[in-house]
């Protein structure tokens, strides 16, 4: 088998495994527990029409195997049924919240990776200097302080003591008039959550970058690169960071599942109208179709971004293409 093919067989196989396990787990967990659809059919909260609809949807009169196939078909078409609590399609609820979650996570993680990389490289070059100490401290904070605690303190500081940012929500109530005003209002609501995620995220990332770059700086090829007299900047960014890129991307990839956890907590602290918060509310309210759907979609997003990151690793590391040593 060609190396690239082997690489992708492994990655795609892993991704398929994750999705399959989550599907099976979802199916059984949500069926075996109190408040499962079978019991809910007997719930007086539901009108007879709703019960009939539910029975048909889950195929509750059919054997378990058929139920599973029906379930698979629904999952494949993202048909998660109606939410118990709002009686609206779960997919609709999730899609309504997804932009908020993405608007939180994408800028936050791009900024923390950017900031962390720059500071990490600087810290790697100036060992023992202030930059390195700052990076070490920020890293220790991000590994030992509960993220939600730091966010709560920030919220208390910047929304209560110095009320510059709003206490809660993704949008003012009532929302302002006009597209630009709404946009500005959304940014105002997102500023503190994004800032807090950057503050919590860049330290760990900078520490990783620093450690990898320090390791690369000790390698033989860095001596020759220095001999070429190409200047400190090219040496650091062009050679050291470039050589550290494949393992860095791999680590970034490993951190992606944590991003989803971060979304749940951040959206809870700041009361944002996002998917993570939706998952929490569904779990707390025993709204199984909603919780299952949100969990499944979040897993899909994680697996999808994992594959994307794998693709980037493959681009960054020529050794994978031709089967040299793999970077992890």
């Amino acid at each position, binding site marked *: 088998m060609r190396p690239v093919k082997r690489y992708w067989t492994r990655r795609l196989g892993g*991704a398929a495994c994750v999705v399959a396990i989550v599907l099976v787990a979802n199916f059984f967990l949500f069926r075996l527990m109190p408040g499962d659809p079978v019991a809910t059919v007997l719930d007086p909260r539901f009108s007879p029409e709703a019960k009939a609809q539910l029975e048909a949807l889950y195929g509750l009169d059919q054997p378990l195997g058929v139920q599973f196939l029906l379930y698979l078909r629904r999952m494949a078409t993202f048909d998660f049924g109606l939410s118990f609590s709002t009686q609206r399609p779960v997919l609709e609820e999730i899609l309504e919240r997804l932009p908020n979650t993405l608007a939180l996570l994408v800028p936050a993680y791009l900024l923390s990776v950017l900031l962390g990389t720059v500071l990490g490289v600087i810290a790697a070059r100036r060992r023992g200097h202030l930059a390195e100490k700052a990076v070490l401290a920020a890293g220790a904070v991000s590994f030992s302080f509960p993220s939600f605690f730091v966010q*709560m303190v920030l919220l208390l500081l910047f929304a209560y003591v110095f009320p510059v940012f709003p206490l809660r929500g993704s949008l003012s109530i009532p929302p302002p008039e006009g597209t630009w005003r709404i946009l500005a209002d959304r940014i105002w609501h997102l500023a503190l959550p994004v800032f807090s995620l950057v503050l919590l995220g860049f330290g760990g990332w900078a520490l990783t970058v620093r450690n990898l770059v320090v390791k690369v700086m000790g390698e033989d090829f860095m001596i020759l690169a220095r001999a070429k007299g190409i200047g400190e900047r090219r040496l650091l960014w062009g050679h050291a960071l470039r050589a550290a890129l494949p393992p860095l991307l791999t680590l970034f990839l490993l951190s992606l599942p944590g991003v989803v956890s971060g979304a749940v907590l951040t959206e809870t602290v700041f009361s944002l109208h996002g998917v993570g918060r939706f998952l929490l509310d569904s779990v707390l309210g025993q709204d199984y179709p909603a919780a299952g759907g949100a969990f499944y979609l979040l897993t899909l997003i994680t697996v999808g971004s994992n594959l994307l990151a794998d693709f980037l690793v493959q681009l960054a590391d020529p050794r994978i293409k031709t089967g040299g040593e793999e970077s992890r």
Partner: protein
Amino acid sequence: MKMRWSAWVLAVFLFCGFLLPLFLKGDPREPVAAPFSKPVWADRTQAPAMSLTVPTGEAGKTFSWSWEAPRGLSVTGEVLFAKTPSKAALIWETPAGAKWVLSDLSGQNRWTLDLDARDMAFRISLGLSPFDESLRGLFDKHGMIRVRIESDVPVERSSLLVKIPGERWGLFGTDQRGRDVFLLFLYGIRVSLFVGILAVLVSSLIGLDAGLVAGYVGGAADTFLMRTVDVLLSVPLLPVLMVLAALWGKGLWQLVLILGLFSWMGTARTVRSMALSFREAPYVEGLRALGAPTFYILARHGIPTVLPLLLANIALGVPGVILSEAALAYLGLSDPRVISWGRMLHEAQSFGAFTTGAWWLLLPPGLGIALLCLAFMDLGRALEEWADPRLKGGRA
């Protein structure tokens, strides 16, 4: 070996979590002062909680007042006169010289009082506005206040207790139900330590077995276990924990199991790489050649080889578990009857810490978690250096 700071911190935490509550009387679940009271050291313009007995003598009880008027005041207890007084009263003299009759005690030789400033009837009888929260009339300026029983007959016995709940209480103040945050904080140590250490033991046990089997036996077992690790590492942890906690119940033991089941991956990888080199060691090959059973080799020689690093791994694993437990509790997925730091933060958020600016509800549990995590990380580093002295000094 020099005593690491982390060892001191852990010792103090252990003492505070397990021994100190034995000496402190009081149930942490019971209110002790007004809700949202600040810590005593925080705001000196606010009154601390006070509790004064009124003696039988003519002079009564005098105390000095130098704070803003409080919102609460209560008088409870019994008075017994030698014989029925024709004229008697419980008198309150303010620093400015005003005289208030808190309660008329004439015409009866035994009185049981239960007065509370939150009580409309009491306020009206005093002539206070039923709507103005503060008792500005009774505390008209800073100075000496006197409470006494005035009567034409001697007072035989008095168990009258004047209580001012105050706006300041204890080391860390009180929460939304008036519970002592310091006591809650102490009880929270137990949960964090209990869940943190037990869950890591569970996960280390799994990780040790999985790592040894994967590294030493190899082959299909290795492939299977390492694929499992990859899969577990690519699933978002917190949502899984949330769903499991909601489905399996929120008890501490369930939590320990759930957290243990989802945090053994790192240990398995570490142990596996050690087992790989252990398998190639000459004495192990010798044992194999002599026909020693795999189980014997692993139990007798494998585990002792990986043990030092495993200990370091255990210590380094505790922060992750403590943080996960706190996150679950913060999200409201913990047993509400169990006091934990995460639960305290959950309640702080749900019951208006942000609308009242009650920072003292946030800082103790949050900083407690952080300090405990930092201590375990430092301990783990020390154990790591002990297991592998090459790490000493320059850690990359």
